[in-house]
């Protein structure tokens, strides 16, 4: 198996292995399954899709073009076939990424059930509005990606080959930061101090690298120490473990009142229950800073963290 398809991307070893397998198979057969990249935001789904597409060749040996669509902007079948399929896809050799595919409109989802209901055939004709649209899967590669796989219509999900992304380790995040700012030299142990504040997310690592680059640029000194990171954290508001100020408030509230119901906590913080659960509690639970046992409670680790804030 060729392991050099993704030289610029850090981590996600299982994803690389699976995609490399499909790229090897594509070289021999010219066919690729309909991939569905699933993972939390910032894990690199779009970057991997693009890198995958870059490795696909056309019949004439040229690199295949890559079309990235934001599904939430597709209103219906008519818009898709008129604005995208006919001018960009039909008869062309191209890779198409349907990003945030859980937001596909209902009629297009139904159309895709027909179009992607094929195991072996390289071509599929789709009849709609008294027209025939030809899909040629040797020429066109389809990739889907989403953060919310539970919202994809299950029969469509069944037709796709799922590839799951996993959170990055602190070592991988440190590697991403260093790759993004090759001009910066980090003092010993500095990257190890930075990476736990990046929330297991490659996009946050790129943002943190940008902040470090700006800090060094302003100082005109590209040697970055732990002391520099403390100063940068103070300036831009980086908290331990990368928690946000809202998460800090949640911990402090729980620390003060012992425990709280979801409704009570939401009322105290002036937030909706959904936002509280989706945007903040998940990370605090993941980092073992709070627990839910009927009521929300702060853990001993959470109390320790509160004392340092």
């Amino acid at each position: 198996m060729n392991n050099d398809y993704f030289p610029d991307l850090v981590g996600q070893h299982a994803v690389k292995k699976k995609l490399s397998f499909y790229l090897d198979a594509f070289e021999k057969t010219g066919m690729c399954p309909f991939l569905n990249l699933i993972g939390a935001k910032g894990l690199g789904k779009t970057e991997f899709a693009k890198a995958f597409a870059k490795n696909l060749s056309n019949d004439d040996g040229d690199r295949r073009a890559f079309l990235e669509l934001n599904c939430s902007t597709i209103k219906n079948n008519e818009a898709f076939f008129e604005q995208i399929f006919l001018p960009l896809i039909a008869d062309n050799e191209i890779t198409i990424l349907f990003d945030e595919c859980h937001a596909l409109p209902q009629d297009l989802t139904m159309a895709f059930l027909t179009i992607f209901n094929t195991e072996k055939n390289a071509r599929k004709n789709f009849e709609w509005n008294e027209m025939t649209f030809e899909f040629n899967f040797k020429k066109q590669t389809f990739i889907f990606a989403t953060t919310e796989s539970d919202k994809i219509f299950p029969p469509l999900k069944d037709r796709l080959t799922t590839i799951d992304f996993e959170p990055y380790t602190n070592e991988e995040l440190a590697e991403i930061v260093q790759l993004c700012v090759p001009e910066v030299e980090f003092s010993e142990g500095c990257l190890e101090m930075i990476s736990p504040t990046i929330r297991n997310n490659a996009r946050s690592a790129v943002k943190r690298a940008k902040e470090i680059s700006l800090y060094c640029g302003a100082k005109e000194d590209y040697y970055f120490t732990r002391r520099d990171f403390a100063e940068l954290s103070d300036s831009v508001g980086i908290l331990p473990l990368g928690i946000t100020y809202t998460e800090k408030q949640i911990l402090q509230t729980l620390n003060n009142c012992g425990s709280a119901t979801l409704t009570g906590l939401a009322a105290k913080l002036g937030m909706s229950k959904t936002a509280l659960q989706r945007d903040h509690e998940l990370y605090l639970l993941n980092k073992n800073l709070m627990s839910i046992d009927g009521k929300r409670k702060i853990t001993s680790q959470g109390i320790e963290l509160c004392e340092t804030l």
Partner: protein
Amino acid sequence: MGKGRPKGYSPYAYIEYKELGQLIGRNPIIKVSRSWLESLEGSPAPSTPTPEAPPRSMEEILCDSPEEPTPKIEFNLTTFDNE
């Protein structure tokens, strides 16, 4: 003496198409079922009212909102030409 319309009366009457053509000419725009027209492979005429159409009230004009244009789909196309 009885009032109202006699039994069997209809407000509609039949006329031969040829005679109707002689009376109103061959150019007036008339409204027909779109699917029926398409089944005959006819092409629709512009929907602007004919000069003979009754003038529309200001209320009707204000109520008529133009059809919403289909929003543009956001996309990025990468060709990898320079990589």
